[in-house]
Protein backbone atom coordinates (compact mmCIF):
# COMPACT_ATOMS: atom_id res chain seq x y z
CA UNK A 1 0.00 0.00 0.00
CA UNK A 2 0.97 3.59 -0.54
CA UNK A 3 -0.21 6.09 2.01
CA UNK A 4 -0.08 9.76 2.75
CA UNK A 5 0.42 10.54 6.40
CA UNK A 6 -0.19 13.87 8.00
CA UNK A 7 1.64 13.80 11.29
CA UNK A 8 1.66 16.32 14.12
CA UNK A 9 5.23 17.55 14.52
CA UNK A 10 6.20 19.62 17.51
CA UNK A 11 9.85 20.09 18.48
CA UNK A 12 9.25 20.32 22.23
CA UNK A 13 6.70 21.36 24.82
CA UNK A 14 7.12 25.08 24.16
CA UNK A 15 7.28 24.97 20.37
CA UNK A 16 4.39 25.51 18.00
CA UNK A 17 3.23 22.33 16.32
CA UNK A 18 1.82 21.65 12.89
CA UNK A 19 0.75 18.78 10.69
CA UNK A 20 3.45 17.64 8.25
CA UNK A 21 2.75 15.44 5.23
CA UNK A 22 4.78 12.30 4.47
CA UNK A 23 4.52 9.57 1.89
CA UNK A 24 5.14 5.92 2.72
CA UNK A 25 5.18 3.12 0.21
CA UNK A 26 5.40 -0.66 0.34
CA UNK A 27 3.22 -0.97 3.41
CA UNK A 28 1.86 -4.47 3.90
CA UNK A 29 -1.60 -4.99 5.30
CA UNK A 30 -0.12 -7.36 7.92
CA UNK A 31 1.90 -4.57 9.47
CA UNK A 32 0.78 -3.04 12.69
CA UNK A 33 0.19 0.69 12.65
CA UNK A 34 3.36 1.26 14.65
CA UNK A 35 5.39 -0.90 12.26
CA UNK A 36 4.15 1.37 9.50
CA UNK A 37 5.50 4.32 11.50
CA UNK A 38 8.78 2.40 11.93
CA UNK A 39 9.03 2.29 8.15
CA UNK A 40 8.48 6.04 8.00
CA UNK A 41 11.11 6.65 10.66
CA UNK A 42 13.72 4.49 8.94
CA UNK A 43 13.13 6.59 5.82
CA UNK A 44 13.43 9.83 7.76
CA UNK A 45 16.65 8.83 9.51
CA UNK A 46 18.32 7.89 6.25
CA UNK A 47 17.16 11.15 4.72
CA UNK A 48 18.79 13.01 7.60
CA UNK A 49 15.49 14.16 9.04
CA UNK A 50 14.21 13.94 12.56
CA UNK A 51 12.14 10.75 13.01
CA UNK A 52 8.64 11.02 14.46
CA UNK A 53 8.65 10.57 18.23
CA UNK A 54 5.86 8.38 19.62
CA UNK A 55 5.39 6.37 22.81
CA UNK A 56 5.24 2.59 22.52
CA UNK A 57 6.64 -0.34 24.42
CA UNK A 58 5.03 -3.77 24.74
CA UNK A 59 3.28 -3.69 21.36
CA UNK A 60 0.84 -6.28 22.57
CA UNK A 61 -1.87 -4.04 23.92
CA UNK A 62 -1.23 -4.16 27.64
CA UNK A 63 1.38 -1.62 28.75
CA UNK A 64 -0.70 1.40 27.74
CA UNK A 65 2.23 3.37 26.32
CA UNK A 66 1.01 3.84 22.76
CA UNK A 67 -1.23 6.83 22.33
CA UNK A 68 -2.09 8.10 18.89
CA UNK A 69 -5.20 9.82 17.65
CA UNK A 70 -5.72 8.44 14.16
CA UNK A 71 -8.17 10.25 11.89
CA UNK A 72 -9.73 11.82 14.95
CA UNK A 73 -10.15 8.57 16.89
CA UNK A 74 -8.09 7.73 19.96
CA UNK A 75 -6.22 4.50 19.01
CA UNK A 76 -7.81 4.62 15.54
CA UNK A 77 -10.84 3.02 13.96
CA UNK A 78 -10.82 -0.32 15.81
CA UNK A 79 -11.56 -0.82 19.47
CA UNK A 80 -8.02 -1.69 20.51
CA UNK A 81 -4.72 -0.04 21.30
CA UNK A 82 -2.72 1.63 18.53
CA UNK A 83 -0.12 -1.14 18.66
CA UNK A 84 -2.77 -3.78 17.93
CA UNK A 85 -4.24 -1.83 15.04
CA UNK A 86 -3.20 -3.32 11.71
CA UNK A 87 -2.84 -1.69 8.34
CA UNK A 88 -5.56 -3.90 6.93
CA UNK A 89 -7.94 -1.41 8.51
CA UNK A 90 -6.80 1.09 5.83
CA UNK A 91 -6.88 1.20 2.06
CA UNK A 92 -4.20 1.85 -0.50
CA UNK A 93 -4.00 5.57 -1.22
CA UNK A 94 -5.54 6.64 2.08
CA UNK A 95 -4.53 9.83 3.81
CA UNK A 96 -4.15 9.27 7.52
CA UNK A 97 -4.03 12.04 10.12
CA UNK A 98 -1.96 11.22 13.19
CA UNK A 99 -2.11 13.46 16.25
CA UNK A 100 -1.13 13.24 19.90
CA UNK A 101 -3.59 12.96 22.79
CA UNK A 102 -4.86 16.49 23.31
CA UNK A 103 -5.75 17.68 26.79
CA UNK A 104 -4.48 20.43 29.03
CA UNK A 105 -3.50 17.83 31.62
CA UNK A 106 -1.46 15.90 28.99
CA UNK A 107 1.02 18.46 27.63
CA UNK A 108 2.91 17.45 24.49
CA UNK A 109 6.57 16.55 25.09
CA UNK A 110 7.51 16.07 21.46
CA UNK A 111 5.56 15.21 18.31
CA UNK A 112 3.12 12.49 19.37
CA UNK A 113 4.51 11.99 22.87
CA UNK A 114 2.58 13.49 25.77
CA UNK A 115 3.13 13.70 29.51
CA UNK A 116 0.61 11.51 31.32
CA UNK A 117 2.13 11.81 34.78
CA UNK A 118 -1.15 13.33 35.98
CA UNK A 119 -2.52 9.77 35.96
CA UNK A 120 0.27 8.65 38.28
CA UNK A 121 -0.56 11.46 40.68
CA UNK A 122 -4.23 10.46 40.73
CA UNK A 123 -3.17 6.94 41.75
CA UNK A 124 -0.76 8.37 44.32
CA UNK A 125 -3.63 10.33 45.84
CA UNK A 126 -5.39 7.14 46.89
CA UNK A 127 -5.46 4.49 44.19
CA UNK A 128 -4.02 1.79 46.43
CA UNK A 129 -4.80 -0.37 49.43
CA UNK A 130 -2.51 0.21 52.37
CA UNK A 131 -0.98 -3.22 52.89
CA UNK A 132 2.68 -2.94 53.89
CA UNK A 133 4.72 -5.98 52.95
CA UNK A 134 4.54 -8.65 55.60
CA UNK A 135 1.32 -7.42 57.13
CA UNK A 136 -0.98 -9.53 55.01
CA UNK A 137 -3.35 -12.07 56.53
CA UNK A 138 -3.76 -15.52 54.98
CA UNK A 139 -5.21 -15.11 51.50
CA UNK A 140 -8.27 -17.25 52.22
CA UNK A 141 -9.09 -15.38 55.43
CA UNK A 142 -11.48 -13.11 53.55
CA UNK A 143 -13.49 -14.77 50.79
CA UNK A 144 -14.63 -12.37 48.09
CA UNK A 145 -17.95 -13.16 46.38
CA UNK A 146 -17.29 -14.02 42.76
CA UNK A 147 -19.48 -11.23 41.34
CA UNK A 148 -17.49 -8.69 43.37
CA UNK A 149 -14.21 -10.24 42.29
CA UNK A 150 -15.33 -10.12 38.66
CA UNK A 151 -16.48 -6.51 39.03
CA UNK A 152 -13.12 -5.60 40.53
CA UNK A 153 -11.27 -7.36 37.73
CA UNK A 154 -13.27 -5.70 34.98
CA UNK A 155 -12.24 -2.30 36.29
CA UNK A 156 -8.70 -3.34 37.14
CA UNK A 157 -8.17 -4.07 33.45
CA UNK A 158 -7.56 -0.35 32.77
CA UNK A 159 -4.13 0.10 31.18
CA UNK A 160 -3.85 3.83 31.93
CA UNK A 161 -3.31 4.75 28.29
CA UNK A 162 -5.37 7.93 28.49
CA UNK A 163 -7.55 7.28 25.44
CA UNK A 164 -10.56 8.23 27.57
CA UNK A 165 -9.12 11.68 28.17
CA UNK A 166 -8.09 12.05 24.55
CA UNK A 167 -11.56 11.16 23.30
CA UNK A 168 -13.53 13.18 25.83
CA UNK A 169 -14.69 16.55 24.50
CA UNK A 170 -13.96 17.92 27.97
CA UNK A 171 -10.59 16.23 28.49
CA UNK A 172 -12.03 14.48 31.52
CA UNK A 173 -10.29 11.65 33.39
CA UNK A 174 -13.45 10.31 34.98
CA UNK A 175 -13.31 6.90 33.34
CA UNK A 176 -9.70 6.34 34.37
CA UNK A 177 -10.32 7.49 37.93
CA UNK A 178 -13.53 5.55 38.27
CA UNK A 179 -11.91 2.34 37.03
CA UNK A 180 -9.45 2.36 39.92
CA UNK A 181 -11.99 3.54 42.50
CA UNK A 182 -14.39 0.78 41.52
CA UNK A 183 -11.69 -1.89 41.42
CA UNK A 184 -10.55 -1.19 44.97
CA UNK A 185 -13.76 -0.01 46.60
CA UNK A 186 -15.73 -3.15 45.89
CA UNK A 187 -13.19 -5.41 47.61
CA UNK A 188 -13.34 -6.07 51.34
CA UNK A 189 -9.61 -5.32 51.48
CA UNK A 190 -10.31 -1.84 50.12
CA UNK A 191 -13.08 -1.02 52.56
CA UNK A 192 -11.10 0.82 55.29
CA UNK A 193 -9.98 3.48 52.80
CA UNK A 194 -13.14 3.44 50.76
CA UNK A 195 -14.17 7.03 51.51
CA UNK A 196 -10.82 8.78 51.51
CA UNK A 197 -9.82 6.96 48.33
CA UNK A 198 -12.62 8.31 46.19
CA UNK A 199 -12.58 11.79 47.70
CA UNK A 200 -8.83 12.20 47.36
CA UNK A 201 -8.61 10.74 43.88
CA UNK A 202 -11.41 12.95 42.56
CA UNK A 203 -9.84 16.00 44.22
CA UNK A 204 -6.49 15.20 42.59
CA UNK A 205 -8.19 14.65 39.25
CA UNK A 206 -9.70 18.13 39.51
CA UNK A 207 -6.41 19.64 40.55
CA UNK A 208 -4.65 18.21 37.51
CA UNK A 209 -6.91 20.26 35.28
CA UNK A 210 -8.99 17.52 33.74
CA UNK A 211 -12.48 18.53 32.65
CA UNK A 212 -15.76 17.30 34.09
CA UNK A 213 -18.04 14.58 32.84
CA UNK A 214 -20.96 15.48 30.62
CA UNK A 215 -21.68 11.82 29.94
CA UNK A 216 -20.96 12.19 26.26
CA UNK A 217 -19.79 8.58 26.35
CA UNK A 218 -16.80 9.06 24.03
CA UNK A 219 -14.42 7.73 26.68
CA UNK A 220 -16.10 4.35 26.91
CA UNK A 221 -16.24 4.08 23.13
CA UNK A 222 -12.51 4.74 22.86
CA UNK A 223 -11.44 2.56 25.80
CA UNK A 224 -9.42 -0.35 24.40
CA UNK A 225 -10.25 -2.43 27.47
CA UNK A 226 -13.98 -1.81 27.36
CA UNK A 227 -14.36 -0.08 30.73
CA UNK A 228 -18.06 0.84 30.61
CA UNK A 229 -19.51 4.34 30.97
CA UNK A 230 -21.53 3.18 33.96
CA UNK A 231 -18.21 2.92 35.79
CA UNK A 232 -18.43 6.69 36.17
CA UNK A 233 -21.90 6.37 37.68
CA UNK A 234 -20.59 3.92 40.24
CA UNK A 235 -17.83 6.32 41.16
CA UNK A 236 -20.30 9.19 41.53
CA UNK A 237 -22.27 7.02 43.91
CA UNK A 238 -19.13 6.23 45.90
CA UNK A 239 -18.22 9.90 45.99
CA UNK A 240 -21.64 10.95 47.32
CA UNK A 241 -21.63 8.17 49.86
CA UNK A 242 -18.17 9.19 51.01
CA UNK A 243 -19.10 12.86 51.23
CA UNK A 244 -22.08 12.03 53.45
CA UNK A 245 -20.08 9.65 55.62
CA UNK A 246 -17.14 11.98 56.08
CA UNK A 247 -19.49 14.86 56.95
CA UNK A 248 -20.97 12.73 59.72
CA UNK A 249 -17.58 11.96 61.27
Amino acid at each position, binding site marked *: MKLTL*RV*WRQRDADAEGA*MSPYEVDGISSDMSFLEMLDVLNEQLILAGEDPVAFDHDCREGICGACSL*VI*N*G*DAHGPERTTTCQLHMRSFKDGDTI*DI*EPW*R*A*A*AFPVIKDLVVDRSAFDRIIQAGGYITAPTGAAPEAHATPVPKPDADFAFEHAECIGCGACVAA*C*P*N*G*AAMLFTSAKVNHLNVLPQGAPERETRV*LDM*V*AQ*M*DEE*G*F*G*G*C*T*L*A*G*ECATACPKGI*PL*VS*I*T*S*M*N*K*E*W*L*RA*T*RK*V*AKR
Partner: protein
Amino acid sequence: MARTVWDSSVGKKTVMAVSGLIMLLYLVVHMIGNLKIFFGAGEFNHYAHWLRTIGEPFMHYEWTLWLIRVVLVVAVVAHAVSAYQLSRRDIRARPSKYVHRKPKVTYATRTMRWGGIILGLFIVWHILDLTTGTVHSGGFQPGHPYQNVVDTFSTWYGDVIYIVAMLALGLHVRHGFWSAAQTLGAGSRTRDRALKTVANVLALLLTAGFIAVPVGVMTGVVS
Protein backbone atom coordinates in the same frame (compact mmCIF):
# COMPACT_ATOMS: atom_id res chain seq x y z
CA MET B 1 -19.48 19.29 53.39
CA ALA B 2 -20.89 22.17 51.36
CA ARG B 3 -17.34 23.25 50.59
CA THR B 4 -16.32 19.75 49.49
CA VAL B 5 -19.29 19.53 47.21
CA TRP B 6 -18.90 22.96 45.65
CA ASP B 7 -15.15 22.65 45.16
CA SER B 8 -15.33 19.33 43.37
CA SER B 9 -16.29 18.79 39.77
CA VAL B 10 -18.30 15.76 40.82
CA GLY B 11 -19.92 17.83 43.60
CA LYS B 12 -20.88 20.59 41.22
CA LYS B 13 -22.44 18.05 38.94
CA THR B 14 -24.43 16.89 41.93
CA VAL B 15 -25.63 20.44 42.49
CA MET B 16 -26.70 20.54 38.86
CA ALA B 17 -28.45 17.22 39.14
CA VAL B 18 -30.35 18.08 42.31
CA SER B 19 -31.33 21.57 41.15
CA GLY B 20 -32.30 20.16 37.78
CA LEU B 21 -34.53 17.54 39.37
CA ILE B 22 -36.20 20.21 41.53
CA MET B 23 -36.96 22.23 38.43
CA LEU B 24 -38.10 19.13 36.61
CA LEU B 25 -40.55 18.35 39.40
CA TYR B 26 -41.83 21.89 39.24
CA LEU B 27 -42.20 21.65 35.47
CA VAL B 28 -44.31 18.53 35.71
CA VAL B 29 -46.67 20.29 38.14
CA HIS B 30 -46.60 23.44 36.04
CA MET B 31 -47.43 21.52 32.89
CA ILE B 32 -50.38 19.76 34.52
CA GLY B 33 -51.62 23.09 35.80
CA ASN B 34 -51.32 24.59 32.34
CA LEU B 35 -53.58 21.94 30.88
CA LYS B 36 -56.44 23.38 32.93
CA ILE B 37 -56.65 26.07 30.30
CA PHE B 38 -58.57 23.60 28.16
CA PHE B 39 -61.35 23.58 30.75
CA GLY B 40 -62.14 27.24 30.34
CA ALA B 41 -61.22 30.59 31.83
CA GLY B 42 -63.09 29.98 35.08
CA GLU B 43 -61.28 26.85 36.07
CA PHE B 44 -57.91 28.15 34.90
CA ASN B 45 -58.19 31.47 36.71
CA HIS B 46 -59.49 29.72 39.79
CA TYR B 47 -56.48 27.41 39.74
CA ALA B 48 -54.16 30.43 39.41
CA HIS B 49 -55.82 32.06 42.35
CA TRP B 50 -55.58 28.87 44.40
CA LEU B 51 -51.80 28.89 43.86
CA ARG B 52 -51.71 32.04 45.95
CA THR B 53 -53.78 30.60 48.75
CA ILE B 54 -52.03 27.24 49.18
CA GLY B 55 -51.49 26.43 52.83
CA GLU B 56 -54.01 28.89 54.21
CA PRO B 57 -54.86 29.51 56.93
CA PHE B 58 -51.48 28.29 58.24
CA MET B 59 -49.68 30.23 55.53
CA HIS B 60 -50.51 33.79 54.75
CA TYR B 61 -51.73 34.75 51.25
CA GLU B 62 -48.97 34.04 48.62
CA TRP B 63 -46.47 32.81 51.22
CA THR B 64 -46.32 29.32 49.75
CA LEU B 65 -46.04 30.69 46.24
CA TRP B 66 -43.12 32.88 47.26
CA LEU B 67 -41.50 29.96 49.00
CA ILE B 68 -41.72 28.00 45.77
CA ARG B 69 -40.37 30.95 43.85
CA VAL B 70 -37.41 31.27 46.19
CA VAL B 71 -36.60 27.59 45.89
CA LEU B 72 -36.87 27.85 42.12
CA VAL B 73 -34.66 30.91 41.92
CA VAL B 74 -32.05 29.20 44.06
CA ALA B 75 -32.29 26.13 41.84
CA VAL B 76 -31.98 28.13 38.63
CA VAL B 77 -29.03 30.12 39.94
CA ALA B 78 -27.27 27.06 41.32
CA HIS B 79 -27.90 25.16 38.10
CA ALA B 80 -26.67 27.99 35.91
CA VAL B 81 -23.63 28.92 37.98
CA SER B 82 -22.41 25.37 38.28
CA ALA B 83 -23.10 24.81 34.59
CA TYR B 84 -21.10 27.90 33.75
CA GLN B 85 -18.20 26.96 35.98
CA LEU B 86 -18.12 23.37 34.81
CA SER B 87 -18.23 24.45 31.18
CA ARG B 88 -15.34 26.82 31.77
CA ARG B 89 -13.36 23.98 33.32
CA ASP B 90 -14.22 21.70 30.43
CA ILE B 91 -13.12 24.20 27.83
CA ARG B 92 -9.89 24.90 29.70
CA ALA B 93 -9.21 21.18 29.91
CA ARG B 94 -9.22 20.83 26.13
CA PRO B 95 -7.53 24.01 24.88
CA SER B 96 -6.46 22.76 21.45
CA LYS B 97 -8.80 20.93 19.14
CA TYR B 98 -7.93 18.00 16.93
CA VAL B 99 -6.95 18.99 13.43
CA HIS B 100 -8.88 16.03 12.11
CA ARG B 101 -12.46 16.78 13.09
CA LYS B 102 -14.78 13.88 13.15
CA PRO B 103 -18.18 14.45 11.52
CA LYS B 104 -20.04 13.13 14.55
CA VAL B 105 -20.98 15.93 16.92
CA THR B 106 -20.97 15.58 20.63
CA TYR B 107 -24.71 15.90 20.69
CA ALA B 108 -25.33 15.73 24.40
CA THR B 109 -22.77 18.28 25.53
CA ARG B 110 -23.73 20.80 22.90
CA THR B 111 -27.47 20.60 23.27
CA MET B 112 -27.09 20.86 27.02
CA ARG B 113 -24.99 24.02 26.83
CA TRP B 114 -26.91 25.83 24.10
CA GLY B 115 -30.22 24.46 25.28
CA GLY B 116 -29.46 25.70 28.77
CA ILE B 117 -28.73 29.21 27.52
CA ILE B 118 -31.93 29.23 25.43
CA LEU B 119 -33.95 28.08 28.42
CA GLY B 120 -32.36 30.69 30.68
CA LEU B 121 -33.30 33.47 28.29
CA PHE B 122 -36.75 31.99 27.88
CA ILE B 123 -37.39 32.00 31.61
CA VAL B 124 -36.59 35.69 31.79
CA TRP B 125 -38.96 36.46 28.92
CA HIS B 126 -41.61 34.15 30.31
CA ILE B 127 -41.64 35.89 33.69
CA LEU B 128 -41.60 39.35 32.18
CA ASP B 129 -44.42 38.29 29.88
CA LEU B 130 -46.84 36.40 32.09
CA THR B 131 -45.86 37.08 35.70
CA THR B 132 -44.95 40.75 35.79
CA GLY B 133 -46.51 41.65 32.44
CA THR B 134 -43.60 43.96 31.62
CA VAL B 135 -43.20 42.81 28.03
CA HIS B 136 -46.70 41.47 27.59
CA SER B 137 -48.17 42.02 24.13
CA GLY B 138 -51.75 42.98 24.97
CA GLY B 139 -52.93 44.83 28.00
CA PHE B 140 -51.66 42.69 30.87
CA GLN B 141 -54.40 42.02 33.42
CA PRO B 142 -53.21 40.82 36.80
CA GLY B 143 -55.51 38.08 38.11
CA HIS B 144 -56.65 37.10 34.63
CA PRO B 145 -54.03 34.62 33.48
CA TYR B 146 -56.36 32.97 30.97
CA GLN B 147 -56.67 36.11 28.90
CA ASN B 148 -52.96 36.88 29.28
CA VAL B 149 -52.03 33.48 27.93
CA VAL B 150 -54.37 33.80 25.02
CA ASP B 151 -52.91 37.24 24.26
CA THR B 152 -49.36 35.95 24.25
CA PHE B 153 -50.08 33.03 21.99
CA SER B 154 -52.04 35.15 19.63
CA THR B 155 -48.78 36.73 18.46
CA TRP B 156 -46.55 34.76 16.07
CA TYR B 157 -43.37 35.57 18.00
CA GLY B 158 -44.96 34.48 21.25
CA ASP B 159 -45.69 31.10 19.72
CA VAL B 160 -42.28 30.79 18.10
CA ILE B 161 -40.35 31.68 21.24
CA TYR B 162 -42.44 29.37 23.35
CA ILE B 163 -42.39 26.40 21.03
CA VAL B 164 -38.66 26.67 20.33
CA ALA B 165 -38.00 26.90 24.06
CA MET B 166 -40.17 23.87 24.78
CA LEU B 167 -38.36 21.80 22.15
CA ALA B 168 -35.09 22.83 23.78
CA LEU B 169 -36.60 21.84 27.09
CA GLY B 170 -37.44 18.40 25.76
CA LEU B 171 -33.90 17.79 24.59
CA HIS B 172 -32.53 19.20 27.81
CA VAL B 173 -34.69 16.98 29.97
CA ARG B 174 -34.01 13.97 27.82
CA HIS B 175 -30.24 14.04 28.43
CA GLY B 176 -30.49 15.89 31.73
CA PHE B 177 -32.69 13.44 33.55
CA TRP B 178 -30.58 10.45 32.54
CA SER B 179 -27.43 12.43 33.25
CA ALA B 180 -28.67 13.45 36.70
CA ALA B 181 -29.38 9.80 37.47
CA GLN B 182 -25.78 8.95 36.56
CA THR B 183 -24.42 11.83 38.61
CA LEU B 184 -26.42 10.77 41.62
CA GLY B 185 -25.22 7.22 41.16
CA ALA B 186 -28.64 5.83 40.35
CA GLY B 187 -27.64 4.36 37.01
CA SER B 188 -26.53 0.81 36.46
CA ARG B 189 -26.13 -1.55 33.57
CA THR B 190 -29.46 -3.22 34.22
CA ARG B 191 -31.30 0.02 34.90
CA ASP B 192 -29.91 1.97 31.97
CA ARG B 193 -32.70 1.16 29.50
CA ALA B 194 -35.37 1.95 32.05
CA LEU B 195 -33.77 5.28 32.89
CA LYS B 196 -33.42 6.22 29.25
CA THR B 197 -37.07 5.31 28.65
CA VAL B 198 -38.25 7.37 31.60
CA ALA B 199 -36.14 10.29 30.37
CA ASN B 200 -37.61 10.06 26.88
CA VAL B 201 -41.18 9.75 28.13
CA LEU B 202 -40.74 12.64 30.52
CA ALA B 203 -39.24 14.82 27.82
CA LEU B 204 -41.99 13.94 25.39
CA LEU B 205 -44.84 14.48 27.85
CA LEU B 206 -43.46 17.79 29.06
CA THR B 207 -42.85 19.12 25.59
CA ALA B 208 -46.22 17.95 24.32
CA GLY B 209 -48.05 19.16 27.39
CA PHE B 210 -46.52 22.61 27.26
CA ILE B 211 -46.83 23.02 23.51
CA ALA B 212 -50.48 21.98 23.66
CA VAL B 213 -51.32 25.41 25.06
CA PRO B 214 -50.02 27.63 22.21
CA VAL B 215 -51.33 25.06 19.74
CA GLY B 216 -54.69 25.25 21.46
CA VAL B 217 -54.68 29.03 21.11
CA MET B 218 -53.53 28.92 17.51
CA THR B 219 -56.19 26.43 16.53
CA GLY B 220 -58.86 28.32 18.37
CA VAL B 221 -59.60 25.58 20.87
CA VAL B 222 -58.61 28.07 23.49
CA SER B 223 -59.69 31.64 22.91
